[in-house]
């Protein structure tokens, strides 16, 4: 199977710091891939390069066989790469409905199809369980609901690759329990790239895990392989862990 996303020698320096350093990476279609690693390992920088929020110093990015290294971010989104922000970044002053209407109206071929817009918005809100809060200003939603709204905005783009940057950060245990089946559900129609610190969540969700350290890939494998990997234990899980 050809990978959906491939990076070759992807590098990004900030001053003297190589935040992402020669990363070769590939994700297969339909996969749930988790990226873990200590703070400052370059995870968010890496996915920002993939989404086009920042441009690489060197290296190449291919999406579905097409070179997108120099493509502006908004065109990558149109190709099907959606990014949900690590720091909740909903439009606080707009209603939940309008927040989701923005991505929905862009995916509609005919923006004037009012019925299609409404149906698309309510479907995306329903998938994350926020349909009954459509009229609320996003800034007045509970924090967990804002995270879900963020996911709904990503979903509404009908992405082929959905990048979730620490989606469970700040969620309660009960909310996390609801979140796991949601991601599985999303993965039936999209490939999911998820940065996550919550190791139990990662172990339950991911098909494969990539471990970053100091801008490089330290290890890659199934959850079971990663759990047994000695280098990973030392770098990240804590050497006393196993």
């Amino acid at each position, binding site marked *: 199977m050809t990978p959906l996303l491939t990076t070759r020698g992807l590098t990004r320096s900030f001053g003297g710091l190589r935040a992402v350093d020669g990363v070769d990476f590939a994700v297969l279609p339909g996969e749930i891939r988790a990226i873990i690693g200590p703070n400052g390992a370059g995870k968010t920088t890496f996915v920002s390069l993939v989404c086009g929020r920042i441009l690489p110093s060197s290296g190449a990015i291919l999406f579905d066989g097409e070179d997108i290294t120099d493509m502006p971010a908004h065109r990558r989104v149109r190709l099907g790469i959606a990014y949900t922000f690590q720091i909740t970044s909903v*439009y606080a002053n707009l209603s939940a409905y309008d927040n989701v209407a*923005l991505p929905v109206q862009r995916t509609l071929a005919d923006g004037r199809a009012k019925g299609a817009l409404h149906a698309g918005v309510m479907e995306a809100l329903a998938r994350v369980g926020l349909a009954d809060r459509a009229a609320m200003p996003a800034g007045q939603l509970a924090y967990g609901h804002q995270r879900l709204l963020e996911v709904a905005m990503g979903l509404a783009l009908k992405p082929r690759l959905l990048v979730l940057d620490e989606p469970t950060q700040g969620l309660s245990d009960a909310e996390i329990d609801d979140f796991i089946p949601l991601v599985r559900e999303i993965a039936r129609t999209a490939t999911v790239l998820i940065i996550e610190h919550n190791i139990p969540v990662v172990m339950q969700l991911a098909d494969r895990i990539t471990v970053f350290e100091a801008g490089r890939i330290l290890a890659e494998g199934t959850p079971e392989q990663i759990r047994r990997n000695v280098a990973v234990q030392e770098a990240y899980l804590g050497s006393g862990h196993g």
Partner: protein
Amino acid sequence: MNETPPARLYGLHLAVVLALFGLNFVLPDYHQGLFPRIMVLATFAMGYNLLFGYCGLLSLGHAMFFAAGLYGAGLAVAHLGWAVPAAFAAGLACGALLSLAVGVLALRTSGVAFMIVTMMFSQVLALAILYFAPWTGGDQGLVLPQQARVLNLGFAAFDLTHPAVRYMAALFLFAVVLLVTLAIVRSPWGRVLVAIRENEERTRMLGYDTFASKLAAVVVSGVVCAAAGAAWALLFGYVGANFASVQYSILPLLWVLMGGAATTLGPLVGTLAMYYVIDIASSHTSAWLLIVGVALVLLVLFFPKGILGALRRRWPGWLP
């Protein structure tokens, strides 16, 4: 922006237009003379509001777009002897070209830099108008002769210097721009403009080319302001360099702030209120700027969202 029954919305805006229409027949002569000016300036403010209120771009150079329309139409009449419709179109074209050029350059910046760059471009135009005095009349300006200001539509000729005709022409321009603004802010594109104001980076990551949207907003805003300028030249017959000065870049900002930024009717309310505050104050004292200043301070303290912004919070949440 919310899913409001459109009938009520368009009903309210049509009611405002009808009220202005009715006022023509009941206002005393003096006020019947003021209202066309207020409606044209409110059109200028609506153009400003589209960019500042909805898209969140604070320009300090919108006098140049008003002046582009004013001189585009005025010079066409004075030197080329063009008829009213062609001169008005020339004003619009000048506004469109200028806003496109300024937009492409100024939108490379944002925030304070955008304010400075737009102000700078506006100053260039103001100085150019003074420099080319043989054509523009310099600081004296140009007075368009009365016989040139007749709108000939084939079946009928309208003398734009006649008070009632002037009133109706200004109202027509105001009503068209008001309804266009309403349609824009309720359209998907209007939603994108607000999204850019609220969080541009997020909007980009939803797949929108935010530069293209902002440029389109600058051009639409510039053309509306140019329409107001062209109308001013043709209705009031005076084309003056003071309209290109910094003062006329600040005034639309104040009108919009007073009426309520990002409300469709705010520019009219703000322009009307400010015009009458100045008019009444200046008939009582020469220190009328002081009274304007006090009014603005009170406004910012107690109604930071403007008159309609404050009303919207308390009562009809559906006001666009």
